[in-house]
């Protein structure tokens, strides 16, 4: 019986040496959902993606994808799992020495024995899905940021994975590209029956397309809910995040001694 | 970069590199080492080999016909035992003599073979009977001074 949950993270803790980054995360993503993981920079969102992808192992707890515990897989098993996952890196991470076409064809050429005709058809199909079929012959250096990310998306779905992870897909994009990207993520998830995991801090765009949101702060999940629940939430951290308030649970001032002391006022000068 | 153009350049590079190696091997150096299959070994004993080294040429009438293979010290008779390889094309009579000569005035030393008159030829592993040691400069000077002293002293 296949569970409805594609990704299950239970009680996961992770840290670099003495520095804990994640202190106890519980998170699930069901098949066909778009799930967003939000939080301020450095709260461990990207670490979660790397845990799911098996690049690092959790100190405590378990990470399960399609029922299999990622940390317990051997090299062959891990590679097998990764062929069913796609990952979109923050700036695309396209291979700069290959054309757009070759980038998307990469996984097909490495992992399948398909003839070049079949590969060509598949690549053009994926590029068409992201609207960049005409850019197939360009080199990554000739693409704009938004286009590069769309090509990376086409590359991530080349083998029709069951899970796609996006690391800050909206960072640094102009309003049109933002709309395009958000639209693409939702459409691809629905038409291909994927599960999408977004790590982002772009609230407005994500709330338009996601099914469920997790808020991470200080290494734990502080809030979760559907898009509407989050928008209506009055938890101080969520409220500050969603409305972009300057001061709140995340303080404006970096910890410093008292202002008067710093300026040397009220001190006896020798 | 088109794959076929790339392959072409790499192919040219490898061909050029191998050509350079061949040039070095054939025009710059030479396969000087006489290999075991087309040479025969002969041994010569000397009381003093001077500056003779392994791989020194073995010449006869000034033509290089072989190489010194190895030089050993014979503790039985306290002499130097020189083993050399001579090209199979040049057989020498059994009474051939070997001398250690110097090319030029102060150049490298080599073995010069002077053929004898015997009808029987040297075989692989034979020892030469007649040898002439290297000229040691100090002995020469000593001889000269001694000779001069002899001349000058009153009888």
């Amino acid at each position, binding site marked *: 019986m296949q569970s409805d949950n594609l990704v299950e993270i239970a009680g996961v803790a992770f840290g670099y040496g003495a520095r804990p980054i994640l202190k106890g995360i519980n998170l699930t993503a069901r098949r066909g959902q778009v799930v967003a993981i939000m939080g301020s920079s450095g709260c461990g969102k990207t670490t979660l993606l790397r845990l799911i*992808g098996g*690049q690092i192992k959790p100190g405590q707890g378990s990470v399960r994808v399609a029922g299999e515990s990622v940390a317990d897989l051997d090299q062959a098993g*891990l*590679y*097998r799992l*990764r*062929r069913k*996952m796609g*990952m979109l*890196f*923050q*700036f695309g*991470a*396209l*291979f*700069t020495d290959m054309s757009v076409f070759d980038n998307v064809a*990469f*996984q097909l050429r*490495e*992992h399948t024995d398909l003839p070049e005709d079949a590969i060509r058809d598949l690549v053009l199909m994926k590029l068409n899905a992201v609207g960049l079929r005409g850019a197939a012959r360009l080199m990554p250096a000739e693409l704009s940021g938004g286009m590069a990310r769309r090509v990376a998306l086409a590359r991530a779905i080349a083998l029709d994975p069951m899970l796609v992870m996006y690391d800050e897909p909206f960072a640094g994009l102009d309003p049109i590209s933002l709309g395009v990207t958000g639209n693409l993520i939702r459409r691809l998830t629905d038409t291909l029956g994927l599960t999408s995991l977004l790590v982002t801090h772009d609230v407005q765009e994500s709330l338009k397309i996601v099914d469920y949101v997790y808020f991470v702060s200080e290494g734990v999940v502080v809030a979760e809910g559907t898009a509407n629940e989050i928008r209506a939430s009055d938890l101080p951290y969520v409220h500050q995040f969603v409305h972009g308030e300057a001061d709140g649970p995340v303080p404006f001032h970096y910890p410093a001694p008292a202002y008067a002391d710093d300026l040397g006022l009220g001190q006896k000068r020798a | *970069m088109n*794959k076929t153009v*790339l*392959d072409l*350049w*790499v192919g*040219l*590079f*490898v061909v*050029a*590199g*191998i050509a*350079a*190696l061949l*040039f*070095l*091997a054939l*025009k*710059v*150096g*030479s*396969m*000087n*080492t006489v290999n075991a299959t087309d040479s025969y070994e002969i041994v010569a004993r000397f009381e003093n080999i001077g500056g003779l*080294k*392994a*791989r020194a*040429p073995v010449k006869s009438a000034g033509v*290089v016909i072989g190489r010194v293979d190895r030089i050993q010290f014979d503790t039985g008779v306290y002499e130097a035992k020189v083993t050399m390889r001579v090209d199979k094309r040049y057989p020498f009579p059994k009474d051939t003599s070997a001398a250690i000569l110097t090319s030029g005035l102060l150049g490298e030393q080599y073995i010069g073979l002077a053929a004898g008159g015997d009808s029987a030829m040297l075989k692989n592993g034979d020892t030469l009977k007649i040898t002439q040691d290297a000229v040691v400069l100090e002995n020469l000077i000593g001889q000269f001074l001694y000779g001069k002293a002899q001349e000058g002293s009153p009888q």
Partner: protein
Amino acid sequence: MPTIWAWGRNVLKRALENLGNSTVQGVWRMGFATRFFLAVLMHSGTAFRRFGLTIREMYFTGVLSLIIILVSGLFVGMVLGLQGYETLQTYGSEEALGVLVALSLVRELGPVVAALLFASRAGSAITAEIGLMKATEQLSAMEMMAVDPIARVVAPRFWAGVISMPLLAALFSAMGVLGGYLVGVQLIGVDEGSFWSQMQSAVDFEQDILNGVIKSVVFGVAITAIALFEGYDAPPTAEGVSGATTRTVVTSSLAVLALDFVLTAFMFRGLN
């Protein structure tokens, strides 16, 4: 003056701490580098099964280094011809010019200078490329696509460098001999016949040429391994990559010179 002693003690203490720290770091890094090198060797299967990858890298390391190698070889040979003639002339042995030029090049200058040039051109390029691929997460992306970056990216470059190095050294020596010939025979007027004939009798294939080739293979291994490691280990920032590139050139140049000494002592010892 107690404060000066205290200050001096502090400086010394900090210097020793830094030295100890750097040594420990250095040893740790050597261990990591050795494991990396072994991993590259073990994953070399792909580099040979898909030889096209290696050929592609041979273009970037070997072919693109040709110009500097050929031109430098020519100039070094020409200088050897000039300088050699000056010195030999005082002993009346100008005809040994061919011997001087050929032996210097084939035994030492060919492998070593070609290796140093290779380290600065191809070595730094490899480090920068791998470092940049790491900084832009391309290696991570490849890992996430279930393709081992060591097998696919690092190993082909390693074998390309190892194969290219002896070819480049041979080309350097050949050009050098040509340069020496041009200056000695054509320009200065040393007798052409004795130039080549004395050279041929003095340069032995096994002893000199083969040893030179062995040297250049060893240098190729050292330089490429160092370049790949520095790139793979570089911090993923602009300063990180530039620091790694500098370290590649310095470390591999020193390694080449040290290995040259060891190999020469080992190889030419029996020539008494």
